[in-house]
């Protein structure tokens, strides 16, 4: 990714904000999910307890990660599952390619994997002559549009149905001008069915890896992961090391909160448990680190790994809803994207794409303290001398200025005076972003301190 200004969050967000009706539409679509989530969460009396248990369970697993991963591996082996370990994205992609090459695979159907996005696997395999077909409807849409996902659960949420219609017309030959979701979905299903039937291998992400079972759980609403995994004989599942949970009970806690917090559904339509290859087939699990162990070393950052990728924090985030997923300089957008992506952000801006309002932390089903993590990232960036928006120049001045009453009083006195006597149009250029969008404050006659001295002194 380039370090140019064009990738800075505020810049991309400003472009997104230019089309206000689109911002309103985007914000509303996501807020509808938040409202559905509120209704679903509110219908369970023990919701807050589930969040607490989910949080404690994930934290416990993360602090005993080696044991649980080893237990998981051993049980997988017992179940005839082949387990691979990858330290980073490159190694993950190499392993996947090796497996596929060994079986002469030309076509892979894939479902639900932000991790393969994180590893940039599709282009890697495509360069090596393997076709990768994303099979979740939303993912297929953005794949056809040659765009990255803009949301972790509804990856094409930024596209209107008319735009999908145009895209399908061009790529799948649907009727020109058609935008009926039912018609478009049918067309996509038809198109995907051919792909499923002709694929040589299937690949999915993993929602949970159950240590004492040696099983992986994949949740989808379209059943496509199952279509994929059950048709070809070769199935691959990629997972981050943070996906492991101790047992069925702990998986059940996550299953109860995941869909409710994501879309307001009581449970995802298909929650499939895979614990071994089909007859005569092969099942591989690739366990990926890709920077997660490093995050675990920092107590605050480590909590980001409690995330179960429900997307709830994106739906509630007032900044994400108004700036769109593509404004974040990372594959995963929104609060959780900042939490896990700020260290990879070469623009050093996404940690500041947040008002620290804290809504995300309260929405999160495993209590990831997102605002705390984001704040912590800012501190780490500041300490590394990587501040955006000219902060490294002006912050020391602000620091000195605020610490000096005289400086503060004098200049604020002048500012108050200026606000009083200069016409707004003259001041606006000087007040930057504030005055561009808002009226400047009405200036008072004196400071409170001066008033106090005069009236109570």
């Amino acid at each position, binding site marked *: 990714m380039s370090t140019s200004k064009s990738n800075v*969050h*505020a810049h991309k*967000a400003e472009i997104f*904000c230019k089309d206000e009706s689109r911002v309103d539409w985007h914000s509303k679509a996501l*807020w509808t999910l938040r409202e559905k989530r*509120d209704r679903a*969460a509110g219908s*369970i*009396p023990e*919701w*807050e307890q589930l969040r607490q248990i989910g949080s404690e369970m994930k934290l416990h697993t993360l602090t005993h990660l080696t044991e649980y991963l080893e237990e998981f591996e051993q049980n997988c082996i017992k179940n005839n599952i082949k387990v691979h370990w990858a330290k980073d994205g490159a190694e993950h992609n190499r392993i996947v390619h090796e497996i596929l090459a060994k079986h002469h695979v030309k076509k892979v159907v894939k479902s639900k994997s932000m991790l393969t996005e994180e590893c940039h696997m599709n282009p890697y395999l495509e360069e090596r002559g393997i076709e990768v077909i994303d099979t979740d409807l939303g993912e297929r849409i953005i794949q056809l549009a040659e765009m990255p996902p803009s949301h972790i659960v509804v990856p094409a949420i930024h596209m209107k149905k008319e735009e999908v219609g145009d895209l399908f017309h061009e790529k799948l030959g649907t009727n020109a001008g058609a935008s009926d979701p039912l018609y478009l979905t049918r067309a996509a299903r038809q198109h995907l069915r051919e792909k499923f039937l002709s694929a040589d291998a299937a690949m999915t992400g993993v929602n949970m890896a159950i240590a004492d079972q040696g099983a992986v759980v994949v949740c989808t609403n379209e059943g496509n992961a199952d279509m994929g995994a059950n048709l070809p004989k070769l199935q691959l599942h990629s997972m981050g090391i943070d996906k492991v949970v101790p047992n069925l009970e702990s998986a059940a806690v996550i299953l109860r909160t995941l869909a409710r917090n994501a879309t307001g559904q009581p449970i995802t339509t298909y929650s499939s448990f895979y614990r071994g290859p089909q007859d005569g087939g092969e099942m591989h699990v690739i366990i990926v680190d890709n920077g997660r162990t490093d995050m675990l070393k920092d107590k605050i950052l480590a909590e980001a790994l409690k995330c179960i990728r429900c997307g709830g924090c994106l739906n*509630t985030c*007032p*900044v994400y809803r*108004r700036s769109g997923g593509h404004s974040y300089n990372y594959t995963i957008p929104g609060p959780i994207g900042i939490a896990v992506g700020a260290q990879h952000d070469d623009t050093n801006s996404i940690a*500041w*794409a*947040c*008002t*620290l*309002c*804290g*809504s995300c*932390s*309260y*929405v999160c089903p495993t209590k990831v303290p997102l605002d705390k993590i984001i*704040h912590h990232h*800012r*501190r780490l960036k*500041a*300490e590394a001398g990587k501040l955006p*928006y000219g*902060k490294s120049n002006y*912050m*020391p001045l*602000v*620091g000195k200025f*605020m*610490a000096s*009453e005289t400086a*503060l009083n004098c200049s*604020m006195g002048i500012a*108050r005076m200026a606000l009083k006597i200069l016409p707004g149009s003259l001041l606006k250029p000087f007040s*930057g*972003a*504030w005055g*561009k*969008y*808002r*009226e*400047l*404050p009405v*200036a*008072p006659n*004196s*400071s*409170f*301190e001066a*008033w106090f001295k005069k009236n*109570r002194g």
Partner: protein
Amino acid sequence: MKIALFIPCLVNQMVPEVGIATLELLEKLGHQVILPSGQTCCGQPMTNSGCFNEAKKTTLKLLNAFKGVECDAIVCPAASCLVAAKENFHEFDDSPEAQAVIAKLYELTEFLHDVAPIPAFSKSFPHKISLQMSCHGIRMLDLATPSEQMGPRKNKFEAVLAAIPEIEIVYPDKLDECCGFGGTFAVDEGAVSAKMGKDKAQAHAATGAKYAVGFDPSCLLHIDGMVRRQKLPIETRHIAQILNAVL
């Protein structure tokens, strides 16, 4: 009670009327109110940006203004400054004197709800008000149950105001969504901040209320700027101003 006022720089310089209303209402309630000298910024603009080194001197200066001041409580009419002061004092000074200051810090609404409730109002306030549930007060100071949280609900902010005769309380759509001020966010992320502020200002105006009332002057200043830019038929007020008017 003997109360020391904590008047953050923004209130001191830009909205002294909030400081005056706070002082007057506390006096009307029979408290002895003092203003310790040497107060400055809580360090929030710097720590919010991650710049802890730059915040240290300012924060310690503010803390020193309160160290050794004889009082029962330190009251501040600005929720986010209060939260920042609490956190920053703790960050930079762990001494018993600092702990003593931290233990006495209260946001105004919190103080009026938890410590020294208002016994009675002498006037009524026959107007509709739309409550501005600012994030730091709600989610970090526990002034109300955030909308994301399930289970029993409380709202200290509403409880204090609801006791005023004839007042009508309403909420904007997405009742506790952030207004988009966020300190330097308003400047760094101008476009998104402005859009959030605009939506918030419109949501308040859409309630038909006469005033949008809040406990955080920085959010109110931001919303006020958006209200006037769009010429919306609503005005912003700080809770201290409403309370002072009916006491």
